[in-house]
């Protein structure tokens, strides 16, 4: 139904797609796979008329087509869920779903009732119940993702592109989506599905196309490949066992950070935990369960209802991340682009951003030589792949960007590193390297809090796991109790002790 032939795309002088082919049939779910920066999203933007290919052909039902705008693509029956949210925070769900395609009444004014009815019907099919009258900024991330999906569904497209729709969904929510996808497939819709979760690929997809560095690697039926073969196609080499072995924990290890009593401003359970030197403490829970908020409250970046924290045994009141830094607590925020990197800066400037204490001369001035040397060391330590320390970070792949954020914390006398979703949107190869880095850090005596929405990662890495629900820790599991059943049970059911 949809066919791409020899698509090339250059941004400025850099070519990011070098002649990609893709064939998607009616009534199939077609997976598009590849490492970060392989060009998946770029290809899909070309299909939907957002950007224009430098070369190559788009064919629909065998007819060559040209989409100068997104509208033209919609008219041809293409719908897309973008990787980056394309929602407007201040508008409500209905307004967002129909943005750019509002229904109008006889006077040319908005027909709110018609739009609302239609929106309700679509959301009902997705089995989600969300408030339609509030600005979507007040919805949870997962709810926003569903608005995004509903928006694409409302187009009643014949060709539906889903660019990493599950990155912010929990397994059960993902199931809702898969159910709808199966229905659409049955009714003859062609679906392109992009995800870094290989298990999802095997669950829902029929065929697979793999890209590597903008090159077309190949297409195959799902039934014909194994996970290992797939990974090899994507990264061009074999990846052995991605989780490094867990060392046995020293039971008497020093407690470096202790949350005595933390409660979020929005209420919910009162959390407490202890973090020991050399351990990885996992924070598991559903999206929106308050893991990020808890961590930010401890750092003083969020107002909390109550927050008593001991660092190295002494009670501290942290007012902001700078205080955290002073007490040896570093944060890798969950959104690299919005919270982690200064994208217009070089690697060097990003890494040294909070390190000047180490690079200063005469208390005031930057020691440029030392800055360069230290940055180079840090880059080598986390194995950043780049042209050099002066390369701009926005020219790096997602995994390498994440490593730059990690490198920023290497030149401090850190005790605690908080990794918030460290592998979100990162390909398998880079993931394995980041896991190894985390183990290296704990071996050096760092303590790590790892917030993650991916259960395998929690299970594979964490020495102990705090499970969050409704804004706080409801259970802590250890050792052999760390299983997906245990964690999911705590995360979704059971009593929550509410404190007003």
């Amino acid at each position, binding site marked *: 139904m949809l066919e791409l032939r020899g698509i090339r795309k250059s941004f400025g002088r850099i070519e990011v797609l070098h002649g990609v082919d893709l064939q998607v049939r009616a009534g199939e779910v077609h997976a598009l796979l590849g490492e970060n920066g392989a060009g998946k999203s770029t290809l899909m933007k070309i299909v939907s008329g957002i950007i224009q290919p430098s070369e190559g052909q788009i064919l629909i039902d065998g007819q060559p087509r040209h989409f100068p705008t*997104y509208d033209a693509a919609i008219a041809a029956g293409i719908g897309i869920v973008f990787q980056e949210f394309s929602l407007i*925070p201040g508008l409500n769900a209905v307004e967002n779903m129909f943005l*750019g395609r509002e229904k109008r009444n006889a006077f040319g004014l908005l027909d709110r009732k018609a739009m609302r009815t239609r929106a309700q019907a679509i959301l009902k099919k997705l089995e989600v119940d969300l408030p339609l009258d509030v600005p979507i900024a007040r919805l949870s991330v997962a709810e926003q993702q569903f608005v995004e999906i509903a928006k694409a569904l409302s187009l009643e497209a014949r060709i539906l592109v889903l660019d990493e729709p599950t990155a912010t969904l929990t397994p059960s929510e993902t199931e809702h989506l898969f159910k709808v996808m199966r229905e659409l497939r049955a009714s003859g819709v062609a679906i392109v599905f992009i995800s870094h979760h290989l298990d999802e690929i095997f669950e829902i997809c029929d065929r697979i196309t793999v890209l590597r560095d903008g090159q077309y690697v190949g297409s195959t039926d799902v039934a014909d490949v194994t996970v290992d073969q797939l990974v090899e196609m994507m990264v061009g080499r074999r990846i052995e066992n991605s989780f490094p072995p867990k060392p046995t924990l020293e039971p008497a290890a020093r407690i470096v950070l202790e949350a005595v009593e933390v409660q979020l401003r929005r209420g919910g359970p009162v959390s407490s935990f202890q973090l020991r030197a050399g351990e990885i403490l996992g924070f598991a829970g559903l999206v929106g369960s308050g893991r990020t908020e808890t961590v930010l409250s401890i750092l003083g970046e969020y107002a909390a209802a109550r927050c008593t924290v001991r660092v190295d045994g002494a009670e501290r009141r942290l007012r902001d991340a700078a205080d955290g830094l002073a007490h040896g607590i570093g944060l890798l925020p969950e959104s690299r682009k919005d919270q982690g990197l200064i994208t217009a800066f070089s690697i060097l400037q990003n890494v040294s951003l909070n390190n000047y204490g180490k690079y200063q001369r005469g208390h005031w001035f930057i020691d440029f030589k030392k800055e360069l040397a230290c940055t180079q060391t840090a880059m080598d330590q986390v194995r950043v792949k780049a042209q050099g320390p002066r390369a701009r970070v926005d020219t790096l792949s997602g995994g390498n960007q994440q490593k730059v954020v990690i490198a920023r914390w290497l030149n401090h006398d850190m005790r605690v590193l908080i990794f918030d979703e460290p592998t979100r949107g990162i390909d398998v190869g880079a993931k394995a390297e980041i896991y190894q880095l985390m183990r290296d850090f704990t071996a050096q005596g760092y303590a790590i809090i790892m917030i993650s929405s991916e259960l395998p990662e929690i299970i594979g890495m964490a020495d102990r796991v705090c499970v969050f629900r409704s804004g706080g820790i409801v259970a802590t599991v250890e050792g052999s109790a760390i299983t997906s059943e245990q964690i999911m049970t705590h995360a979704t059911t059971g009593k929550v002790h509410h404190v007003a």
Partner: protein
Amino acid sequence: MSHDATVASTARHRALDWLLHSPLALPLVGLIVVSVLMTFASDNFFTVDNVLNVLRQVSVVGILAVGMTFVILTGGIDLSVGAVMALAGTAAAGVMVNMGLHGGLGIAAALLVGVGLGLFNGALVAWGKMPAIIVTLATMGIARGLGLIYSGGYPISGLPGWVSWFGVGRIGIIPVPVIIMIIVYALAWVLLQGTSFGRHVYAIGGNETAARLSGVRTRQVKLAVYAISGLTASLAAIVLTGRLMSGQPNAGVGFELDAIAAVVLGGTAIAGGRGLILGTLIGAVLLGILNNGLNLMGINPYLQDVIKGLIILLAIYIGREWR
């Protein structure tokens, strides 16, 4: 508790909830507080006559602030409104007096100048991708210069008598400028809340990239928004010309700042995406009451600037979280 009481309290609770969440809540509270203070401070304040007087004084900046609201809602800014208004008024007077043409042509000239310069701003911002603050700053200089060149620096007087109707006329007891202002606000309200164009204006201010990815023609909307600002500048020019009975190339210096203050006092976020046109009306009236009340109280004119600045700061400070 009886059932009725529960219902009543829920209704009251809901009204309170609405009030606390509406972007109009704070501007309204500010308006009420300032009005009450002024009523106590001056006997002449709370009379029908003076209220109409304030509204009439507010009308010019109030109309300018409508276009400014559209522009700010998209995340832009228009520093040229005062100068464009002066040029439009000068052009209208020039057509009527110097060229001796029909009054309708004069009004047409004002609209042409306003919308033309608005389109100029909009094209440079939307297609030229230049920062609005710089574009409209340059347009401000250009419009002032053109007005002075055209008029030779002299105000153009000798307008036909009917022009004054726009500035000082009344329908019933309501001054014409006030009626024009209210019509402009009503139209703006329909445009912003009832049409897809209005949704797109908010969407661009909320997240321009996302709006574009959703198929909103962001450039066209931005162009339209600056054109609307030019249009309201020419409507303000017509009212002002009626009030001054002359084309004044030097009029409206600093009015852009008053218009911005009205928009922001009215609860619209300066970064765009959030705000209501009704808030702008409240903001404009609030500013007008401050000017009028401080005059009525006989406050030293120098001190008036200081008090106005402090009250604006206070209002924005209190409002900053709620919004």
